């Protein structure tokens, strides 16, 4: 059954009748990134106004692959379990060359993680769940549908916006303006910021189809299938994914000179689908034709205007780095902005959002560009190398790894960046948490639930943790006068080592490690992670 789009009500904003007092944060765009941003801030007690020019969730499934790290962030934001329940969990990928399977891979063969490597879930469900969650903070999140931002001006210590509504225009003032207005960001255009990069000539057709019978065969096991040069679509590539509600996503590479409008017409799409699924009955749910782009802004922070998600960076979709990258932006910025708004950290902390996420985005673009290049050889020599890699891949493990139909999104490391304290441990400072099951007085839990959200010092084994204001403490496989847990099946001890302490940031990244955590050393690492040394260097 097709998704039932329920329009959200427009309510005349107070600013139409009288000037509003200055807001702490205005978020432009109520897509997954803007909504997640508002929820993250609300969980930290920060008010925000969310403006959106539309009043329905995403039309079309759009972003469908949500990575393990994203799900862990969504867990912290209160929608992870709901997404997991509804989403299709898959971890087996198969690659084909022509009609033959070249190899298959298992994304997460390891036990002891709350979330799987990936789920597939249509963007409209994610937005619906996020709107529901945001509405649990009626005093902190003010979502305004059919409120289109048509102008803004940065005044140094605040930003003014002009907003258009069905009842006319009004103005808003805000300390911080967060642009979550997507790949075509009007904020970015108004500021005249250069947004150039690699655009690929090849066009791709995306089609969502609903069908009762599984195109994966009789066993209905959801997988990811990728074809180089499939028999049903000669010389090009194709991708097949399963979504909830018996919806399947098909991506087909088109000719460079294909007419996009013509290709998207139902009578032209249907024969292409039939070539894949045969005579099994299906319903066409959504079609889109697009070109790949890999672009990022030079800077994500422009004084009081902050770019988050697709407004800051776009990548080609093979590898699931668009929506997932944006959620990691939110995770990185949320706690920093909250600390700055609450006067607990210097404004320079915001600059580290630029440092860290610009790096993450560049890594995503590098990986996505390489995948796209591999899928669309430009010269005979590229085609030759790819063909021979495919030939060798049947027997040779190294050649399988060369095949690149998307290096699936993994969280980037922030090793060596401004906020981290150097150190040596099984998981180095800068890396993100590796989940593990725990059991405690209140039953079973996960490391991610104990660590994310606030600064947390975790002792693994017989390590005594000093008490410091602002830092939670937990012990694993030890006894102490702070909460202690047992490492279920010893996963946590194997992953982190058995006699050391890790200081986690609120976004789950490790910012320091200690053999013997002294009060002085922990306090120093904590202050550094909150930007103390940034201010000193200014």
């Amino acid at each position: 059954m097709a998704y039932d789009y329920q329009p959200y009500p427009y309510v005349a904003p107070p600013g139409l009748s009288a000037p509003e007092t200055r807001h702490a944060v205005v978020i432009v765009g109520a897509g997954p990134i803007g909504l997640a941003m508002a929820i993250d801030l609300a969980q930290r007690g920060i008010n925000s106004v969310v403006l959106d020019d539309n009043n329905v969730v995403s039309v079309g499934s759009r972003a469908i692959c949500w990575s393990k790290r994203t799900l862990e962030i969504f867990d912290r934001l209160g929608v992870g379990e709901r997404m997991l329940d509804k989403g299709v969990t898959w971890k087996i990928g198969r690659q084909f060359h022509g009609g033959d399977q070249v190899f298959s891979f298992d994304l997460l063969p390891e036990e002891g993680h709350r979330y799987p490597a990936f789920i597939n879930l249509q963007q409209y469900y994610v937005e619906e769940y996020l709107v529901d969650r945001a509405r649990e903070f009626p005093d902190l999140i003010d979502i305004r549908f059919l409120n289109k931002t048509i102008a803004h001006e940065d005044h140094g210590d605040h930003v003014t916006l002009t907003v258009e509504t069905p009842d006319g225009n009004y103005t808003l003032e805000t300390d911080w303006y967060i642009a979550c207005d997507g790949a075509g960001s009007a904020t970015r255009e108004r500021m005249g910021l250069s947004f150039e990069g690699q655009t690929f000539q090849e066009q791709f057709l995306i089609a969502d189809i609903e069908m009762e019978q599984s195109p994966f065969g009789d066993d209905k096991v959801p997988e990811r299938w990728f074809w180089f040069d499939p028999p049903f679509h000669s010389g090009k590539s194709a991708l097949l994914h399963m979504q909830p509600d018996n919806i399947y996503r098909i991506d087909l590479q088109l000719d460079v000179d294909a007419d996009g409008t013509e290709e998207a017409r139902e009578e032209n799409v249907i024969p292409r689908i039939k070539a894949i699924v045969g005579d099994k009955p299906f319903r066409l749910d959504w079609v889109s034709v697009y070109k790949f782009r890999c672009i990022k802004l030079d800077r994500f922070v422009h004084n009081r205007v902050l770019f988050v998600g697709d407004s800051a960076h776009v990548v080609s979709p093979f590898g699931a780095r668009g929506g997932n990258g944006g959620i990691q932006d939110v995770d990185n910025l949320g706690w920093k902005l909250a600390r700055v708004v609450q006067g607990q950290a210097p404004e320079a902390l915001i600059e580290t959002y630029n440092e860290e996420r610009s790096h993450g985005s560049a890594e995503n673009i590098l990986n996505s560009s390489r995948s796209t290049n591999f899928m669309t050889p430009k010269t005979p020599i590229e085609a030759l190398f790819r063909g021979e890699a495919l030939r060798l891949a049947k027997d040779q493990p190294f050649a399988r790894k060369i095949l690149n139909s998307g290096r699936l999104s993994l969280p980037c490391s922030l090793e060596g960046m401004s906020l981290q304290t150097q150190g040596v441990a099984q998981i180095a400072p800068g890396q993100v948490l590796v989940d593990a099951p725990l059991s405690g007085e209140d039953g079973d839990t996960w490391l991610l639930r104990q660590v994310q959200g606030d600064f947390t010092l975790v002792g693994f084994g017989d390590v005594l943790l000093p008490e410091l204001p602002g830092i939670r403490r937990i012990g694993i496989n030890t006894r102490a006068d702070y909460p202690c847990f047992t490492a279920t099946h010893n996963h946590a001890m194997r992953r982190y080592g058995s006699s050391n302490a890790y200081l986690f940031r609120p976004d789950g990244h490790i910012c320091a490690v200690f053999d013997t955590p002294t009060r002085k050393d922990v306090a120093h690492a904590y202050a550094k992670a909150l930007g103390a040394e940034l201010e000193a260097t200014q």
Partner: protein
Amino acid sequence: MSVMEDRLSPNQDDFYNALIAAHEGLGEADSHALNARLILLMANRIGDLGVLQDIITTARSYSDA
């Protein structure tokens, strides 16, 4: 034909990208020549004749003719 141990991972993408980039701007004949030079240089680096013979046999076993 031998199944070769994977010694390239995790650097396979960096290598592949560098290889393709080295061919940029070359015509077909120049690309062939570059490949030949690469093979000779890599062979010298490997050095071990037994290993080289094994690689040659394995590569050839995938040829149709």
